[in-house]
């Protein structure tokens, strides 16, 4: 550890001489345990390797990659691809199998529904989905990859049948047609348990404001929406009824064991709240009083953007996102941020999390998670001091130190993706926000990407050196293994390294018409 800290000091000193001062260095607000910035010009100390621009302990288990192959709408994932012994990877696509099925009641009455099949072992943040809808007789057709585990969600279109629980389809070895077709059967409409109860508000009073929401322009008042959802947000209840006194009833599939009640409207002035998780059992359908953190009444909230630095005179336009905390993230209202004037909103009483997202062209950074309370009485005011975007500049050079020209620089951040190309000196410049940042410098093949994961706390200048990396070559065949498969897009993913909830892309390439591919990977 002492060697690590010593190396950090050396690197910091070197960096200061280069950049002129300590201010703005990304690791200054971090502890001594923070990983060191590294590249081929500034290598890591012994027992550490440079990975994503930071020094990583070599004693960590060897990292396997995942490979995503995309052909039009169809994606296949190959997990646990071990490159420790060879960087040659010859593979064949798995068979895509036809799955013919039907969704009907046990009395053979077809049900119209949307069907989503989801690959269970997909790499994090890179979902693999196949979707379809049934016809009027409830028949559907899907194409699913052989050998994989697929979960199937069924969302009936009408209000007659509630959604069944998620189903799994394992190890398909051939087309599922005719005698092997997939038959999904659910009870007929009268056979579902009807759950009843009464919603009470935060003060254990019956919720009175349910039935309708007054319309400010005198039109017919609109009804609030009452939904029954599971932990994933799927709608699992139907025949939803609620009266002005808070009495509700709904039906759900008998195998559904948990649900939450969500109340929401379509506009910001409509209240929104979510109940705790309720246990469902066909033997006990009376749910009693269910508390929902809903407050009656509303008040005005004025959102004003302040430009203390008077960065420019452009009107600040963009977007405001409003999340009622009572809805626990299940409801997000998105409205336009109007330029020059404050935004006036009539909001139900309660607490909110508010994001203000100016257009990047205004030069201002997004401001996230402003918590505010809308109280009864006078106008509530939220003044949002805007902060300018900061400069991220840098230079990309090849291993021999010459400028890397036309390298694509993609900067991923929360709510912002910026990109540019390096100029003839290898330099680039971007306007970005502070905070977690993942930078991908994507040179032309055969050079590998330079990937840097960092926390920006101020204006920053980077020197990125393209390393030699690892050259992964291979071939891609069709499932029959007689023909090659060209034009597929191959993405090499790092399941052990995520940013913003998705596995990082180490490299991408397009398979040649002869089925051969080559993709350069950064050292990892």
């Amino acid at each position: 550890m002492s060697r690590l800290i010593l190396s950090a000091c050396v690197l910091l000193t070197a960096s200061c001489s280069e950049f002129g001062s300590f201010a703005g260095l990304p690791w200054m607000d971090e502890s001594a345990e923070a990983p060191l910035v590294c590249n081929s010009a500034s290598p890591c100390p012994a027992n550490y390797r440079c990975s994503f621009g930071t020094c990583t302990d070599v004693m960590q288990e060897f990292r396997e990659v995942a490979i995503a192959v995309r052909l039009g709408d169809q994606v296949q994932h190959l997990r646990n691809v071990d490159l420790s012994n060879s960087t040659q990877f010859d593979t064949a696509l798995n068979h895509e199998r036809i799955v013919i099925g039907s969704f009907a009641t046990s009395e053979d009455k077809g049900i119209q529904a949307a069907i989503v099949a989801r690959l269970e072992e997909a790499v994090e943040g890179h979902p693999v989905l196949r979707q379809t809808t049934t016809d009027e007789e409830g028949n559907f057709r899907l194409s699913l990859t052989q050998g994989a585990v697929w979960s199937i969600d069924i969302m009936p279109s009408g209000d007659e049948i509630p959604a069944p629980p998620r189903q799994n389809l394992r190890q398909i070895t051939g087309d599922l047609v005719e005698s092997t077709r997939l038959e999904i059967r659910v009870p007929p409409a009268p056979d579902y348990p009807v759950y009843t109860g009464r919603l009470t508000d935060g003060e254990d009073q019956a919720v009175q404001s349910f039935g309708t929401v007054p319309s400010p322009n005198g039109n017919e008042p609109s009804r609030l929406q009452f939904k029954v959802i599971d932990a994933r947000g799927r709608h699992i209840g139907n025949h939803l009824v609620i009266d002005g006194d808070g009495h509700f009833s709904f039906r759900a599939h008998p195998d559904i064991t948990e649900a939450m009640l969500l109340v929401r409207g379509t506009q910001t002035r409509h209240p929104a709240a979510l109940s705790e998780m309720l246990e469902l059992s066909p033997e006990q359908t009376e749910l009693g009083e269910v508390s929902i953190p809903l407050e009656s009444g509303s008040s005005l909230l004025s959102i004003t953007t302040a430009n203390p630095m008077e960065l420019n005179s452009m009107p600040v336009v963009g977007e405001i996102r409003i999340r009622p905390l009572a809805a626990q993230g299940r409801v997000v209202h998105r409205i336009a941020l109007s330029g020059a004037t404050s935004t006036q909103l009539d909001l139900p009483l309660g607490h909110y999390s508010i994001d203000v997202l100016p257009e990047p062209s205004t030069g201002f950074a997004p401001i996230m998670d402003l918590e505010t309370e809308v109280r009864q009485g006078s106008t509530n005011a939220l003044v949002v001091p805007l902060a300018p975007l900061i400069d991220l500049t840098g230079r990309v050079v090849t291993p021999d130190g010459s400028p890397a020209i036309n390298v694509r620089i993609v900067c991923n951040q929360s709510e912002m993706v910026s990109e540019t190309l390096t100029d003839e000196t290898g330099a680039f410049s971007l306007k970005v926000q502070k905070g977690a940042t993942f930078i991908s410098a994507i040179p032309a093949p055969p050079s590998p990407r330079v990937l840097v994961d960092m926390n920006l706390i101020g204006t920053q200048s980077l020197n990125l050196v393209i390393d030699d990396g690892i050259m992964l070559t291979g071939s891609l065949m069709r499932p029959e293994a007689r023909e090659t498969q060209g034009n597929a897009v191959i993405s090499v993913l790092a399941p052990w390294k995520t940013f913003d909830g998705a596995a990082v892309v180490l490299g991408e390439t397009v398979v040649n018409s002869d089925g051969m591919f080559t993709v350069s990977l950064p050292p990892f």
Partner: protein
Amino acid sequence: MILLSTDRFSTLAFSRALAPKSVLAWSLLFMTTSCLARVDGPIVADDPPVVNRPPAIVPGQVSPPEGIVTLNANCAQHQFQLGVIEEQDLQDRIFVRWFIDYDAETRPFVVQDNLLGSEQTDTAREAPSFILEPQSPRQFPNSILIAPDGYHRLEAWVSDRNFEPGDPPNRRVPDEARVDHAWWLIRFTQDTPCPDGSGTP
């Protein structure tokens, strides 16, 4: 040259005898060459004209396939992928612009810009994608239209030269540029499936 290499005298004699004719012959040859040069030009041009070959979006890799696409208006996000762009000129940079409901007068805005670098080793390049957000006031400032009351149009324009100011706004390219584009006519409904992780907000 071989005739002139026998001996000195014979060479001199040969030279003196043939000198006037030789000069005449060389002069004629030069004149002929000059005349030909003026009429036909050089056989190999010093600066051959550069043919800019166009970028091409590979149709089979566009996802969802171009044309009418039905999407759930309540889903948070939908991904559109161009997949692969073929560009024979390896040194060309590729500029991609995405438009929603483009109208040169009322809605000329670019909703996303992408840049792909040059000096590739292969003609096929992995193309960028676009995340469509039905609830975004930036992408749909007048909110979305639900079918059959209306449709929306998403377009991706791919150029091998940078876009420049002028008409049509945000789509004008230099004369030498070559352009390809993909389009989707989006039909929003309430009952189609939502992609994973993008359920009702």
